[in-house]
């Protein structure tokens, strides 16, 4: 064979190797078996879940408790139920699992009063003059502005919040009611908060994972600095209950950093860690708290934000179609 022929053959072999070596180089999808699905779930949470130490959870002992229940021939519903129970051990509203079999999530409101009767607010305080903008409901009660924000999932625009706050321009103070607001997008909370801040302030310290160990964290301070805000420095009262969670929890925490803001109601639900989604080879989707946050005073935001004034709805007020928290807030503003 000539020298040129050898070169041709070598080149051809090299090209064939390059064209087909993807199969050699790439790994394969993980096996879809009950054992493997369980192991992937446990291992991913072991490396990435952020609240083991904060909550005092021994994740290895949880593995020891649940792993014996897993076997290759188990039914999907049993596997889902076992994984769900394991996840519930974390007692975290941001950690759940869902599939075509259902949705298993921790109820962080267990043992707390609702402290909110929507139809009383609707009839007595919003009334026929109720206005709506970007999902926010508002009205003026005597000389105090009342704003109900039921969710931070609906987009709240800069124009929207400006319209609302402009409407309250001649009021003595503002009540912002976030009861039963289970969170949403931090971006919308910032749009609102911006108008109440007087200067740059430290609002929380975010802890992110920097390694696979349960205590491997680095921290980044988070500030809010007002930009072209309306400068609302009049007395402001935030009404809270246990159902206020995640982005709502952050909203309450950030607003509580301001001297002209008071919190009335109950401790919020928490949810300080940003939830992160992932999935298993069988298609089930789960999420977990991937980081954690602390208030500037060092308190974990996952424990919820305690109110300045602990107030619950009384039976007497309920029967008179009165909301005790709103009445208390009106008195605070009018003091």
């Amino acid at each position: 064979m000539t020298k040129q022929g050898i070169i041709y053959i070598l080149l051809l072999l090299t090209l064939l190797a390059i064209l087909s070596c993807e199969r050699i180089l790439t790994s394969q999808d993980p096996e879809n078996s009950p054992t493997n699905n369980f192991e992937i779930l446990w291992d991913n949470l072991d490396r990435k879940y952020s609240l083991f130490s904060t909550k005092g959870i021994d994740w290895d002992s949880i593995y020891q408790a649940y792993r014996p229940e897993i076997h290759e021939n188990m039914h999907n519903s049993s596997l889902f139920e076992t994984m769900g129970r394991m996840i519930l051990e974390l007692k975290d509203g941001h950690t759940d699992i869902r599939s075509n079999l259902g949705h298993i999530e921790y109820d962080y409101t267990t043992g707390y009063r609702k402290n909110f009767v929507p139809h009383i607010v609707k009839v007595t305080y919003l009334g026929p003059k109720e206005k709506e903008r970007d999902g926010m409901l508002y009205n003026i009660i005597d000389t105090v502005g009342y704003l109900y924000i039921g969710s931070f999932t609906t987009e709240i625009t800069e124009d929207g919040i400006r319209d609302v706050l402009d409407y309250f321009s001649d009021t003595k103070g503002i009540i912002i009611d976030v009861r039963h607001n289970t969170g949403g997008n931090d971006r919308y909370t910032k749009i609102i908060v911006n108008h109440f801040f007087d200067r740059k302030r430290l609002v929380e310290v975010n802890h992110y994972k920097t390694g696979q160990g349960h205590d491997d964290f680095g921290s980044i301070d988070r500030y809010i600095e007002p930009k072209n805000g309306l400068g609302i420095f009049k007395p402001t009262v935030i009404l809270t209950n246990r159902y206020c969670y995640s982005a709502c929890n952050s909203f309450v925490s950030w607003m509580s950093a301001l001297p002209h803001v008071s919190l009335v109601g109950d401790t919020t639900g928490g949810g300080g860690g940003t939830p992160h989604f992932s999935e298993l080879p069988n298609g089930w989707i789960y999420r977990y708290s991937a980081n954690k946050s602390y208030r500037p005073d060092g308190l974990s935001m996952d424990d919820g934000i305690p109110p300045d004034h602990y107030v619950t709805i009384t039976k007497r007020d309920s029967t008179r179609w009165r909301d005790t928290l709103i009445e208390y807030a009106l008195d605070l503003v009018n003091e």
Partner: protein
Amino acid sequence: MKHEMRLFLTICFFILSLQAWPQQNTTMLGFGTGVSRNMILDEFHSPMFYRGTGYMLQLGLNKQNDRNYDQLAIIYQKSKISPDIRNNSAAHLYRGSFDWIRTYRVKSEAEKWMIYLGFHILTSYDVSSHTEWPNNSYSHCLAFNLGPSLVLDYSPWTTDIHFYWELSIPVLNYIIRPSLGAIIPEGSIRRARPDIWGVVSGGELTSLHEYQRIRSNLYISFRDSPRFNIRAGYQWDFQNYTVNNHYQSAYHLLYLAVYYRLKT
């Protein structure tokens, strides 16, 4: 400080390399388009491979003479990718790359063959946006690569038809990836710098033990007229990054490009 110094030296090398661009006697500017087949395993989001087909656009500048072969290419790809499991998971994948290969001809007695050896600087940015998950829905891999390149130019029948094969294997890399539980890079968190510079400098300088990449570009160039060349090619790229969230990506490109001869 050691980290910044490494980054600084890498950037200096990049700038100095650019200034070494030669004055050559053939310059071609081309535009191409084609289809891409993408595959990504990004454990920031999922342990499953996401696969999908999309399109690509390419802008290229090519210089070649008896001594050098230089190729500058900007490639954009977009695909919708999904895993092979029964749920609604899917993601939009955007890839952008800015690649430069500079090679020098190796002396050879074969008339039909030209062999070039040199180096490359590959810059690629892959972003995937999950369509179903509202939090941390973005993931990315920004890679700056340096390493050797091999170019073979073979014209078996006539000088109007050339077969080319470019092979690049990076050995020194700067990689920016999300940290374990957030899209912010780990280096940025360690130094409490969430700003843009913190993110850019928060990556990791790696070599073959943590990051592997191979890029192969095979194409045929046909001289259609004194001014125009037509290229049909196949490009294959593979990346594997093993730090924290394992990342593996591969794509196949089939493309057709028209090159215009700027000067001779």
